[in-house]
């Protein structure tokens, strides 16, 4: 396996002689920037992202630098307790995203004998574009809380994929909170305070810190690099392209039929913890790396081209008769032309959880994607990748979860009334 793939790489590379050719971890070309008034949210200058709106913040919001993601299980059997917590969470989340304490005067205002309602580590910090995004897992809609009739059709367990090595302790969950901010302490503060409010009602199942965004979700952002050193998310869906977002990201009213009407205008969140075998990758040749990804490492252009944002030419053939972009490269397999036009909004983060006990980095990509229907978008894409992606030599999926994220909140509305209404 190792030997044959190496030969294939050599064959594909020989004779290309296209230095600065081209590649990138995602597929379609950069969408044309939409005109003004198209609803493209630039990061506000004062570092506060509006909490309310048609859609939840933290999806098309320009990806912040840091992530704290937590999946929780509901431990109470009383739906009222859950509903009250969702209401209390809304208030605290709205306050914190504005840069305020989780509760008024929460740090010291309770006096010397009170337990502070806010833990205080973000007291002197700016809002740092904090967003708090909530999602509900398939298991929340079992018989426990009377929500069975409200389960959206596409909110069910993801199938197993070839090569998965999923850890149950890093997978699933009744609900999730995605906190993103440009300051890691602000993101951690948000999750810490929300988790604390939930003791007795919810319990943390797993959580993940991410230290660097791996996607740009706005044309105003430069494309960041993943832990393989490649630009990642070049061809991502962008906030400035509302037509594509409607087509690929937001659940429309007709799909959210019957009891699942609460999801209209929402989106599905797919989370995958992808461990990278960093040390093995790092001792691969540049050509091997570029052929694996299908893009040039420095510029990010598709192999055979010069500019990062050029459309990959999957038909281009090198002098040796082999495709310039190997057919089993990541870019080729994930290209919409190979997936019936499927696209996704990626919003993942690099992670490093220290070392693994054997002296290797426990690092990789915490993949987050927002999609309109996971079974029409993520599942076929991941099946294609899991079967053939050259990248599989260097990665392993160790965690997996699917959540349905409700739409944004109107004035006066909260997550409790939105879900249980």
């Amino acid at each position, binding site marked *: 396996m190792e030997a044959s793939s190496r030969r294939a790489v050599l064959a594909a590379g020989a004779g290309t002689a296209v230095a600065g050719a081209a590649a990138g971890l995602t597929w379609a070309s950069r969408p044309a920037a939409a005109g003004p008034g198209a609803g493209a949210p630039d990061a506000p200058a004062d570092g506060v992202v509006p909490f309310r709106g048609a859609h939840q913040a933290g999806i098309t919001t320009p990806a912040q630098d840091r992530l704290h993601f937590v999946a929780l299980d509901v431990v109470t059997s009383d739906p009222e307790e859950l509903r009250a917590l969702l209401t209390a969470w809304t208030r605290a989340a709205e306050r914190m995203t504005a840069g305020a304490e989780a509760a008024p005067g929460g740090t010291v205002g309770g006096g010397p004998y009170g337990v502070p309602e806010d833990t205080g580590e973000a007291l002197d910090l700016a809002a740092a574009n904090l967003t708090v995004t909530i999602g509900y897992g398939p298991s929340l809609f079992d018989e426990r809380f009377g929500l069975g009739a409200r389960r959206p059709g596409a909110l069910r367990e993801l199938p197993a994929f070839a090569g998965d090595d999923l850890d149950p302790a890093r997978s699933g969950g009744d609900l999730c909170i995605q906190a993103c901010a440009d300051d890691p302490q602000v993101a951690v503060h948000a999750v810490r305070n929300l988790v604390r409010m939930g*003791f007795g009602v919810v319990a943390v199942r797993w959580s993940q810190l991410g230290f660097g965004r791996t996607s740009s979700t706005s044309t105003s952002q430069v494309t960041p690099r993943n832990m393989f050193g490649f630009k990642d998310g070049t061809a991502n869906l962008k906030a400035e392209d509302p037509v594509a977002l409607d087509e690929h990201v937001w659940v429309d009213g007709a799909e959210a039929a019957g009891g699942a009407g609460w999801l209209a205008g929402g989106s599905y969140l797919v989370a995958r913890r992808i461990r990278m075998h960093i040390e093995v990758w790092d001792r691969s040749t540049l050509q091997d790396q570029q052929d694996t990804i299908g893009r040039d490492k420095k510029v990010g252009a598709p192999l055979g081209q010069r500019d990062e944002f050029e459309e990959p030419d999957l038909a281009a053939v090198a002098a040796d008769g082999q495709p310039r972009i190997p057919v089993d490269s990541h870019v080729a397999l994930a290209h919409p032309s190979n997936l019936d036009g499927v696209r996704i909004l990626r919003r993942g983060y690099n992670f490093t959880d220290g070392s693994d006990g054997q002296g290797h980095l426990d690092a990789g990509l915490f993949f987050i994607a927002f999609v309109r229907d996971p079974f029409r978008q993520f599942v076929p894409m991941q099946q294609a990748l899991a079967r053939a992606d050259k990248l599989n030599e260097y990665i392993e999926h160790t965690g997996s979860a699917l959540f349905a994220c409700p739409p944004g909140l109107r004035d006066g509305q909260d997550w409790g009334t939105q879900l249980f209404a």
Partner: protein
Amino acid sequence: MTTSRARAALLILPLTLGLAACSGAADGSETTGSGGPIAVTASDTACEVARTEAPAGTVEFAVTNSGTKVNEFYVYAEGDRIMGEVENIGPGLSRTFHVELAEPGTYQTACKPGMVGDGIRADFTVTGSSAAAKSDDEKLTAATTDYQRYVSSQADEFLEETTEFVGLVKAGKVEEAKALYPTARSYWERIEPVAESFGDLDPKIDGREDVVEEGMEFTGYHRLEKDLWETGLRSDSGAIADRLLADVTELVAKAKAVELNPLQLANGSKALLDEIATGKITGEEERYSHTDLWDFEANFEGSKAAIQALRPFLREADPDLVATIDSRGTALGDLLETHRDGDGFVLYTELTPADVKKLTEALDAFAEPVATVAGAVAKG
């Protein structure tokens, strides 16, 4: 055993009940003196308070947001303790609220445009004589009397069981001593915060082997635990047992004489749960015998006993809090029962990581409301 810092905190808490927030109902005193509510105009850059003085009692503010940002209005006592606040005042909106300012003195008002920062502050003076609401002194006094009775009874049992345990060790009856060990210790664990408040006796009786690092000799229950489970009885085991009995005798005399205040009860009930969280649920306390769940149960019972003593007061002061504590306490107790084995429990080493996670979750759920009891007591 707890850290010396926790021990000190328990001892030095002053008895200042009835002086704190006093947000109870006004006793018919005049509202805000003459002239009705005090108008506050809050803009994005200013906080205009129409009058900056009021007589002690209920003060009414009418806050109007004339700015463009969401605003908040606070009244602070010294140290930024919040006497009252009104949040989420949208642009153009007005809110009226009442705050109890029972003690004369200098307070501060603050508007917080955008909900962040220290706010735009100004001094606010409360005049006249104290209008402190009557505190529930009788119920709280009864609580301390009740709890002291509990401490006393546990202390007596502790001495009795320790005497028997020491006898078994000295007679070389290893199996019987091992059987009695977790039960005898449970009396200590129920009143641990009180027992530990006598600084030097705690490490002598309950110190783990690490006390050697602090330059002390390794004595007491855990030294005998090591002898019984790990090394077998040694030549000095009998002498160690004699010292244990002498130390426990001294401790029991002190514990029975201790005077407690209601805040110490409240803090003690939380401290017992902290003991579980940091020592028992981790399997650290009983590293040779692995009888940590006996300690877990005893700490939990001791915590509930302190809450029980405060119950008549709490039931009036904060009935919702009592209901939450009760339901979460029941859940934790039920979960602990699933690990029962005969009269005792399974050993810590038999618990799976999933068992420990569930116990931790149930403990977190119980400890959060218990931690707020002190605040309720301080409010009187």
